[in-house]
């Protein structure tokens, strides 16, 4: 038995001055992640400081948008959906949803790729993932 992911209404992300560039890029279909320029290490979620050194020597860089499922669940509500952690090829594990697929067939370790989903009230689209 298959459980197709629902096209649920997604609340708009609340933008703030620090992360506005991330959401502007999302509107252009680009998936950005944080880069600490002190250490050369990527991080998630985007923020105004390096979680490795606490300096503000950080920038947003485009990610490949591919990775594997680290863990997931299927919320068995009227609109089934699958919150998950995806481990990006760049390293960071991103909390997201797995969409546009049979949720009963999901597996840890499965390869996925980014897809942007529109949000309510004309909000910025949010990065979700679908089987690659």
């Amino acid at each position: 038995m298959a459980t197709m992911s629902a096209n649920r209404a997604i609340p708009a992300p609340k933008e703030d001055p620090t992360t506005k560039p991330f959401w502007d890029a999302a509107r252009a279909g680009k998936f950005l992640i944080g880069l600490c320029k002190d250490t050369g290490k990527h991080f998630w979620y985007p923020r105004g400081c390096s979680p490795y050194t606490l300096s503000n020597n950080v920038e947003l860089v485009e990610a490949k948008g591919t990775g594997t499922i680290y863990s997931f669940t299927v919320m068995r509500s009227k609109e089934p959906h699958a919150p998950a952690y995806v481990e990006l090829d760049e390293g960071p594990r991103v909390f997201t949803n797995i969409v546009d697929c049979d949720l009963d067939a999901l597996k840890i370790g499965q390869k996925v790729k980014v897809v942007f989903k529109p949000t309510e009230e004309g909000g910025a689209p949010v990065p979700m993932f679908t089987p690659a």
Partner: protein
Amino acid sequence: MSINGAAYIVGAFEHPTRKAEGQSVAQLHAEVAYGALQDAGLSKDDVDGFFCTSAAPGLGPINMADYMGLTKLRHVDSTDMGGCSYVMHVGHAAQAIREGRCNVALITLAGRPRAEGMATGTVPRSWAPNIPDDPFEIPMARTVVTSYAMVAQRHMHQYGTTSEQLAWIKVAASQHAQHNPHAMLPKPVTVEDVVNSPMVADPLHRLDCCVISDGGGALIVTRPEIAKSLKRPLVKVLGCAEATKNQAAGGIDLSYSAARASGAAAFAEAKVKASDIQYASIYDSFTITVLMQLEDLGFCEKGQGGKFVADGNLISGVGKLPFNTDGGGLCNNHPANRGGMTKVIEAVRQLRGEAHAKVQVPGCKLALANGIGGLLGHRHGAATLIMERE
């Protein structure tokens, strides 16, 4: 400096209500505070230290201190770490007492999410404005149950844990709850009942989840001289520690909890080890929450929690580690969605020999209470408290 021996828990009270249709949250705070003071043999004006969290109505401790007429306060602490706060507050109270900042500390918790019809675990919630992770997680339907479910899914993948093993945790809680006249779910259940209950968020079924209840509780912590002047059995604080665990910049590892750090520190302070503990109150928001803490506190090896909890090992009189003998959050109550308070209260009952006769651990001298606050699969805190009957 250690708090080992610096303070005693002399008052404990759990509100009997599970649905507070006739009381406000503030009134519940007052009722549990009065109950704990009566239990200790103390009165309101003995209280010079007050502890609560943001679950208390008002700005930190200010409004509840006013409501309850606490006029002698010289030490307050409203540090909030979610449901484990009240376990942590016992340690903070012991520190304040050791430093001479207060003599009699009152810790209160109350809430009425059930009467208010709150969707506690299945709807995305923000704790407050301006939280930097919210924009990246609220749209992704981050809820309490999905956060904990991802931990369970990963545990099953990494260690081969099964739904039937997790179900044993609920079975044990229900075996205890049948003796508690206040328990919301007093009927014993089987492993089959749990795994056949509706799936909420894979792999957690409805019976893997705790109840939603109103009510609350309170504790009185005081210095040794005062404790020894009162008529109640002596419950000494041996050790208490807290820790937080983060998403680690994207390096989150769902295989362990902050209890690994809080537990190690508390055991070191108490100068005892996990195998010495005769009774354990383990925060049970979900069955997986218990499994993670048991491993991280060292009651069994990492990954062996499933085998450890199976076959009734947590049932008083049956297994090696009696836990949550009041029925816990899984069957008794989870007041204000914060289970740390009742965890300490039941441990105090066990050490006093005042648990229900059917679940009382004979000669219980050493007990532990552990809490988890926040979202286990995102970012959370833990607090560990070790107590001894003197």
